[in-house]
C-alpha cells in the first residue's frame, strides 16, 4: 500500500529494515491496532505482516464466498468502517517465523529480518482438527477459516451433492447454510446433545433447532466421526462412532480453534495456552503486546482468565493495544467469553455472559412464546445480571450487555430486565 513507510539501509545478513510498529497478523486485532496507532501517532511507521495471500478482509464474511452472495473484493477491510487510517504498510504472504525479543527483530520466512520498536502479536487462531478423526488430510475436507479455504470449498461444491459438517457451532452452521444455498444436501454431526452448545443450553436452543430443521438441515446429535473415507477423487464418505456411514463428497470440520503461538517458541514471552497479556494488553517482555484470538485476557464478570475467538472482541482489544503502543496508556476492560449475535435460519439470537447455568445456584428467569425465547441469568443473590440469551426478539440487547459488563446493581430495573422491557429511558430518568 504505502511502501515508503519502512526505512533503514540494506545490509548483508543483518536486519534490513525497521518499522516503529510491527504488527504480526493482519486480521481483526492487527488491523484495528494499526488504524488506532495512526489516530495517535501519525508519522511512526506501521507495518502489518500477514501470512495470508489476501489483503486484510472481514473474515466473518467468508461463508458468503462459498454461497456466492459476495465476492472477495467486497470483503476488503481497507477503507471500510473504522479502517480508514493512511500510511499503513501491509505485507501479505509474510509469515513470521520467530521473534528475537532482546534484539527487537522479527524473522520473516524467505524475507530476512525486520526490526521494530514495538510489536503486537495478533496472529489469531486456526481450526482445531481433532487427531482422533482419521483421514482428515483427504481432498474435500475443510475447516473454513480463510478466504483461501473458502475458494477451495466453493470449488468443491461444483462436484458435490452431500456435505457432512462435523461440529454444531456457529461457524459450522454458517458454512452449512452457505452450502444449503448452493443446493447441497447438508448433514450436521454434533457430539453434544444439541447445536450451539457453547452458546446456550440444549433447552434454550429449541427454537433455533426448529428453524434449522425447517430450513432443511439434517442434524445428528450425540455422535461424532471416527474417520473420513476417501479415494482418488477425494472424500467419499464419513464413518461415525455409532456405526453409521454416510456417503458424501465434502466434510467441514468446525471443532473450535487453537491460537497461533508457535512462532514464539523459545522466546521469553509468557505463554499460558495463549499469549498472556496484562490489563494494558502488554506481554511480559518489553515493548511487546498481544491482542485478539491469540491473547489470554480476562472475563469482566468473574475476572477469570480466558481466550476468545470473536471478531468483536479482537477489534476491541486490538484498538486498546494500538493505544497503548502509541503511548496512550489504556486499560482493557476484558471480554465476555460468550458474546454472540447472529441470525441462523431466519432466527435472530444473542447470547452473552454466563449462559450455562446447570452447575451453580443462579437466579434464572425464562420466558417462551411460540416465536421467542429468553433466559436472563442473575448472580445467586439476584443483585446483578450476569448473562442473557435472547432468541427471536433481540430488542435492546446492547443495553443488557452494558448492564452485565458494568456490573450494575439491578434492584430498580430488575423487573424490566425479567420482562425484557428495559430501555435507555430508564437510565435517563434516574431509575438507576
Amino acid at each position, binding site marked *: 500500500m504505502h511502501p515508503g513507510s519502512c526505512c533503514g539501509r540494506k545490509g548483508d545478513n543483518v536486519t534490513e529494515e525497521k518499522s516503529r510498529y510491527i504488527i504480526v497478523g493482519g486480521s481483526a486485532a492487527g488491523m484495528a491496532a494499526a488504524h488506532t496507532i495512526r489516530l495517535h501517532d501519525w508519522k511512526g511507521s506501521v507495518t502489518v505482516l500477514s501470512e495470508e495471500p489476501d489483503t486484510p478482509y472481514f473474515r466473518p464474511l467468508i461463508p458468503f464466498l462459498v454461497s456466492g452472495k459476495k465476492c472477495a473484493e467486497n470483503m476488503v477491510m481497507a477503507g471500510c468502517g473504522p479502517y*480508514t487510517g493512511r500510511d499503513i504498510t501491509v505485507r501479505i504472504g509474510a509469515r513470521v517465523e520467530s521473534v528475537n525479543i532482546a534484539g527487537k527483530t522479527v524473522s520473516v520466512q524467505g524475507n530476512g529480518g525486520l526490526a521494530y520498536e514495538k510489536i503486537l502479536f495478533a496472529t489469531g487462531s486456526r481450526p482445531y482438527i481433532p487427531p482422533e478423526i482419521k483421514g482428515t488430510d483427504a481432498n474435500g475436507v475443510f475447516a473454513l477459516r480463510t478466504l483461501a479455504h473458502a475458494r477451495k470449498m466453493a470449488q468443491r461444491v461444483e462436484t458435490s451433492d452431500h456435505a457432512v459438517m462435523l461440529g454444531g457451532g456457529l461457524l459450522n452452521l454458517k458454512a452449512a447454510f452457505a452450502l444449503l444455498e448452493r443446493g447441497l444436501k447438508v448433514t450436521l454431526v454434533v457430539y453434544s446433545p444439541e447445536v450451539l452448545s457453547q452458546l446456550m443450553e440444549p433447552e434454550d436452543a429449541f427454537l433455533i433447532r426448529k428453524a434449522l430443521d425447517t430450513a432443511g438441515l439434517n442434524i445428528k446429535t450425540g455422535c461424532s466421526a471416527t474417520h473420513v473415507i476417501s479415494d482418488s477423487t477425494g472424500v467419499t464418505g464419513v464413518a461415525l462412532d455409532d456405526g453409521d456411514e454416510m456417503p458424501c463428497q465434502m466434510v467441514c470440520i468446525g471443532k473450535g480453534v487453537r491460537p497461533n503461538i508457535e512462532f514464539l517458541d523459545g522466546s521469553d514471552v509468557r505463554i499460558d495456552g495463549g499469549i498472556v497479556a496484562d490489563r494494558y494488553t502488554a506481554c511480559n517482555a518489553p515493548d511487546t503486546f498481544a491482542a485478539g484470538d491469540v491473547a489470554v485476557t480476562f472475563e469482566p464478570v468473574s475476572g477469570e482468565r480466558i481466550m476468545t475467538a470473536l471478531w*468483536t472482541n479482537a477489534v476491541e482489544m486490538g484498538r486498546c493495544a494500538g493505544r497503548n503502543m502509541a503511548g496512550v496508556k489504556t486499560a482493557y476492560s476484558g471480554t465476555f467469553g460468550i458474546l454472540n449475535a447472529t441470525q441462523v435460519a431466519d432466527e435472530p439470537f444473542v447470547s452473552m455472559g454466563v449462559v450455562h447455568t446447570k452447575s451453580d445456584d443462579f437466579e434464572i428467569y425464562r420466558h417462551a412464546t411460540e416465536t421467542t425465547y429468553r433466559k436472563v441469568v442473575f448472580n445467586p443473590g439476584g443483585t446483578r445480571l450476569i448473562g442473557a440469551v435472547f432468541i427471536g426478539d433481540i430488542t435492546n440487547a446492547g443495553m443488557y450487555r452494558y448492564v452485565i459488563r458494568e456490573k450494575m446493581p439491578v434492584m430498580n430495573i430488575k423487573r424490566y430486565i425479567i420482562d425484557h422491557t428495559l430501555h435507555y429511558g430508564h437510565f*435517563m430518568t434516574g431509575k438507576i
Partner: protein
Amino acid sequence: MSQPKEIFIKTDRCLGCLSCTIACVVEHSKSKTLFGAISETPVPKSRVYVQWVEPDGKVPLVCRHCEEAPCMYACISGAISRDENGVVITDTDKCIGCWTCVMVCPYGVIGRQLEEHKAYRCDRCPDREIPACVSACPTGALVYETVDSFSGKVRKHASRELLRAERG
C-alpha cells in the same frame, strides 16, 4: 470545519405525542407522504423511539452517533462508517443482518428491518437542513444544535435557576 450539529433531547418537554416518529417514518418513505408511507412495502420504520417510563415520563431516543461508536467497531462486515459530518452511517448494501450492532449499542436505537434483513438507524436526514423529528416536535423536546450552543443554553438556564434560588 464548523462544529457539527447534533440532536439533543429535553426529557422534561416531551409529551409523548409521537409527532417525531411519524415525521421520521414519512421522511424515510419513498413517497415522503404519510398516506404513501403506510401503504409501502416494506413499511418504512421510525428511527426515533419514544419510551415510556412509569409513572409519566416520556423519553425520545435516537442514535447518538457516538464518538467511540461501539457499533462501528463491532460491525463484522465493514458496513458502519462515519461521514464527514460526524454522522454514523449503516451501508445497507454491506449490512449482512448479523445484528452485532444491535448487541453492542447501549442505547438500543438500532432497529432491524426484517423484510430486508438489514439494520437501520437515524441518518440525521441527509436531505434536510433540520432532521424531520426535530422539525416536527411541537414542544421543543428535540433540538438540533452544536454541542457548544446546547451546553451554553444549559449553563445559562442553570445560572438563572441558581440566582433565583439565592434571591429566594
